[in-house]
């Protein structure tokens, strides 16, 4: 699987990650080499019906009891923009689309 700058920009869009075109060229070269290395796994012989690792242990669940949680002001304190009750973000729905 070869990775070119256009593929990098496609993945970056999925990851909501702004990448400049010259950065995409450099990243394509790096990722291409890395993917060539990890492609070696395709040649590993595994038994028929081999299962994927999901989790090491058994589930340990805590008692289903109400507990305290972060106070609102503590939760909001690190927000870049907030109004005391909510996190504020730019407009999500465009007027023309609605």
């Amino acid at each position, binding site marked *: *699987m070869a*990775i070119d700058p256009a*593929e*990098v920009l496609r*993945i*970056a869009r*999925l*990851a*909501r*990650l*702004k*990448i400049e075109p010259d*950065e995409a060229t450099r*990243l394509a070269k*790096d*990722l291409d*080499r*890395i*993917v060539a*290395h*990890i492609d*070696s*796994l*395709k040649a*590993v012989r*595994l*038994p028929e019906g*081999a*299962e*994927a*690792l*999901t*989790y*090491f*242990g058994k*589930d*340990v*669940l*805590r*008692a289903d009891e109400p507990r305290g949680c*972060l106070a609102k002001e*503590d*939760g909001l*304190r*690190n*927000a*870049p*923009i907030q109004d005391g009750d909510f*996190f504020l*973000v*730019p*407009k*999500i729905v*465009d007027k023309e689309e609605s």
Partner: protein
Amino acid sequence: MSDLWQEGATALAAAVRSREASAADVAEAHLDRALRWNDHVEAFLHLEPEEVRRQAREIDRRIAAGEDPGPLAGVPVAIKDNLCVRGQPATCGSRILEPFVPPYDAHVIERLRGAGAVLFGKTNLDEFAMGSSTENSAFGPTRNPFDLERTAGGSSGGSAAAVASGLAPLALGSDTGGSIRQPAALCGVVGMKPTYGLVSRYGLIAFASSLDQIGPFGRTVDDAALLLETIGGPDPRDATSAGVPVPDLRQPADVKGLRIGVPRECFGEGLARDVRSLVERAIQGLGKAGARIEEVSLPLSVHGIAVYYIVAPSEASSNLARYDGVRYGLRGEGRDVEEMFSLTRGEGFGAEVKRRILLGTFALSSGYYEAYYGRAQKVRAAMRHELEECFKKVDLLVSATTPTAAFGLGEKADDPLAMYLSDVLTVTAPLCGVPALSLSCGRTAKGLPVGLHLTAPRFGESVLFRAARAAEQLLPPFAWPPEPPR
């Protein structure tokens, strides 16, 4: 006691509890050293002397009032900067979290406070713990105290360098692919990754959740044990906490009758000659002390790097989706919310983090998931089975921790694949969820430390520490790095 900074944690706690030394004097000795050394090694990202003194005075007050603050009374412990300490920055070595101040303590921090420890600053790391040299820190690299032009290793390079240069007797790190053991090896100290699930990760900023574990650094095996005893055990706030208490880490140093396996695959080409000879000498020593040394083979372990560099970036791409400029950290300016997300992340993340987010997003994306992530988790399950079968024949495995001693700063910075390959000997343990420990087995001709790596079965910490303590007695004792230029 003179030169308090030279003492280990066990001795310091005993001295403070018996009033032979005050916590204030212990703190001052380490602050004095840290403030002098940090310009050279750059181990700390944040160190607030007044906050350290305040904690130390409180310990002394409690002792004067007849209380016992606990097994780490007055002992300074440096904290990797991906662990949350209420009211202190937790940058993760990233611009994106530069403004973040956690509103709560991690579980391990609560345990340290409860044991009477003095939280001693936040240590440097590769951004989001992604790297093997701390060169990926947005705030500059940590330097190896034994040669300031070389790496301290990574990602917990700041914690390893702090302990090696006497800035703190103990430190916490986190290990995902080798991030405690590799810097411990390169800095000549003891570093240990516990069994997956032994230490709660509540308050550890997540990188790759099926791999991450918090673990101790110390200059001796006993000191590392003391720290693991403090931080380990069940925590209902971490769903992956195994609910298991810390095993007995105080068994006598003795390897008589232990079967120790030497994996053939760990001694292939790429292992530097000077590293190989020190490790082989240490293994011979264990044999002379009564261990049964056997060659074993783990053919699938050679795929560890490929598996790791699919699994870890995939999980990272998911975990790091939370950095979107809404709830904490940096925010980019955008006309709409999606542009705001993209700009925040594009401006806030460094090159290696972007590389791994992209790699992980690719491996998880539609059409590739089965071929990459699915395949990697199958090979990983087979690796785990192979290792479990091996542990039916031997009690422990031994190898070098790293293929070479500390490499030069900048040497691998432009070659991500070469940097990844330096983790070849450490990735198996986290991929299989088992504990492993690195301790120094000597120095190369250039004076650079070399690590001996011991791996045990899941929850095999008792036998791991028992053998490590025995190995420590056979090996050269810790020796201080040269004083930095004035």
